[in-house]
């Protein structure tokens, strides 16, 4: 089984929602669409499902052109942000509903509803109505309805966005287990880089209707093809500073200078944008070539187990991602250490010139 999109574009009222999308999704693959709000994720999923027909381009399922085929004639299920259930039907009947439509025998329905409910840990609620359940249980019910039939394509449109983070953690790891053994193609849309990382599989970055990059998750994460991809796939956002390469050094805003290392010395002598991930900057020097920068604290955001330290000087600001809970009052002076060998380099058009080397063996 495979789903292929070929030169797919979509316009509504003169506005371009998708611009020449080419993608191949393989049977049994878990595909994450990562993009900001209005990037085109939902439109792309609606075209994949057959809820809409693209303005131009073709969609192939197992080699057959299905571009104009309506959703009812494709074997697709979809889970939305909002928990959509039939309010007047019990959880059992909600889950059974797609099977009733396709006239499956009563025994088979019972068996599959029970299996699916077990998998999603909602067996004890089967006889309740959806509104008697918590948000997480309601969303599990709509997921169960999507999973109970053997759809060849299952689409998740930000399904966990309305749930609290602990439930999200749990459902995310359950999803991964659920799909590990399925033959169907799963597509999961999210706005969150960390969710995409946690889900794994194949990540496709989508920005302003265009596909920026697609590939195995940690290769895309560590090897963004351009600055937009690097920005999209980093949370907290990647730090970007414009710098000038001269004969033997790099300078940021005439105030920070450091010598060219092996990796940077063959670059042309002009301006570039330098990037460094928040987790790579630290409060203590870790390497001989770390660049010491005196900064001031703008805010310490604490996630529970991590601290995102926003710091600034007169020319630029940086974000650090640090492990543990650290208290820093606003305006506290701190020295931060930026590792030169972990710099990303982009040209002024945004194309990636260098990424930090990483050892694929360890991934």
């Amino acid at each position, binding site marked *: 089984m495979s789903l292929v999109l070929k030169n797919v574009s979509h316009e509504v009222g003169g506005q371009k929602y998708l611009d020449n999308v080419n993608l191949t999704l393989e049977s049994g693959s878990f595909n994450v669409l990562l993009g900001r709000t209005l990037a085109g994720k939902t439109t792309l999923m609606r075209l994949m499902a057959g809820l809409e027909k693209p303005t131009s381009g073709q969609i192939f399922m197992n080699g057959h052109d299905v571009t104009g085929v309506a959703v009812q004639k494709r074997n697709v299920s979809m889970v939305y942000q909002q928990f959509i259930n039939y309010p007047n039907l019990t959880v059992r009947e909600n889950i059974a509903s797609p099977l009733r439509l396709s006239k499956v025998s009563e025994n088979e329905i019972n068996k599959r509803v029970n299996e699916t409910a077990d998998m999603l840990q909602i067996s004890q609620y089967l006889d309740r109505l959806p509104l008697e359940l*918590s948000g997480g249980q309601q969303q599990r019910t709509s997921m169960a309805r999507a999973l109970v039939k053997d759809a060849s394509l299952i689409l998740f449109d930000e399904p966990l966005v309305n749930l609290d983070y602990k439930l999200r953690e749990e459902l995310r790891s359950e999803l991964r287990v659920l799909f590990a053994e399925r033959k169907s193609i799963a597509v999961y849309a999210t706005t969150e880089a960390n969710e995409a*990382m946690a889900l*794994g599989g194949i990540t496709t970055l989508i920005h302003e209707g265009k596909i920026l990059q697609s590939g195995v998750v940690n290769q895309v994460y560590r090897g963004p093809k351009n600055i937009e991809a690097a920005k999209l796939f*980093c949370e907290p956002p990647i730090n970007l500073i414009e710098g000038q390469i001269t004969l033997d050094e790099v300078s940021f805003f005439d105030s920070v200078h450091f010598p060219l290392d092996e990796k940077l010395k063959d670059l042309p002598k002009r301006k570039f944008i330098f990037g460094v991930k928040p987790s790579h900057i630290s409060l203590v020097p870790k390497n001989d070539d770390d660049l010491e920068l005196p900064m001031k604290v703008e805010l310490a955001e604490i996630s*529970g187990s991590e601290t995102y330290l926003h710091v600034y000087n007169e020319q630029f600001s940086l974000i650090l991602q640090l492990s543990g809970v650290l208290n820093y009052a*606003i305006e506290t002076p701190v020295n931060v250490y930026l590792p030169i060998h972990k710099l990303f380099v982009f040209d002024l058009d945004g194309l990636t010139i260098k990424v930090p080397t990483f050892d694929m063996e360890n991934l």
Partner: protein
Amino acid sequence: MAEIHLKSLAHSYLKNPNGDSDYAIREMDHVWEDGGAYALLGPSGCGKSTLLNIISGLLEPSEGQVLFDGIEVNHIPPEDRNIAQVFQFPVIYDSMTVYDNLAFPLRNMKVPEVRVTSRVNEIAEALELTDVLKKKASNLSPDEKQKISMGRGLVRSDVSAILFDEPLTVIDPHLKWKLRRKLKQIHEQFDITMIYVTHDQLEASTFAEKIAVMYGGQIVQFGTPRELFERPNHAFVGYFIGSPGMNLVDVKRSDTGVRFNTTDVPLEPSLKSLLDSLTSSNVKLGIRPEFIHVWEKKTEGAFECSLDYVEDLGTYKILTLNLDEEIIKVRLDEDRAIPNGKIYISFPEQWLKIYVDEYLIEADVTPLNDSSEVKL
């Protein structure tokens, strides 16, 4: 400004409550000190909205007292409590200018227009709204609208406390941290009691000096963000704070410490004797994924595990390990390689916690030094 004291407070939505499970708020005694920045954190259904409504006066508690600076306010309606509230969605008059929105509460109180002007300007400056004062509120972005909602609470000099109920829900993710910073600055500048209700650990920990974690109608811990992380007082706090949360394993007492299946985990003698002095059989061992030590080789005191799963989260990896049939999650930095074959882990004494009937037991309590960095 006011201290808010919840005295022997409990609430049930039922007429004749019978037993703990009939209470949305189980009996508690809790003080929000004057001028503090607090968060009330918990999952949905924990009772935090009920508690918020009791403080604001939308709900009268079925038992106990709500005291503002020592005076009972149980029967005082919300409009007479001098409490400002900021909700999930901005509550403003779209057709009015930003200036008129901010001036509205003062004009209602018949404050002279000269004082209205100076106060509105002061608040607008603090909230960085000066440039948009003349604009219609309807033309503003969600974060600006939410700042107006806050401003309408701040302009009144008689406000004793501001309650925030998930105020950043509608704010664009990229702007959230700026509003968090603004909130902190506003708190420092105006020195007003603020209580921030949320289910999000990031919102709570960034804003608050102290967080009350609610679970099952009770405040199970009231502590600094660092205390919640490093010394969770209740197993639920260990689970709820941190991603992933604390590893919690059901254990039994053994000769030297605790045991699960065939694995013995020795405890420091004073902790061991404290544990043995208690009778409950509900004993859990807790350790955070960040604090588990991973060894490349077989090491004295380390436990042998097999690797079930690796989650590469970019900046770090979460290893799911199987230790004697128990699932243990471990956090490894991006740069650290995953050992080949068997993995050996140990639990540093400082970070190994024991919970009896869900609550932390500690032999000797040393206070956290807030200025020191955590060695992970």
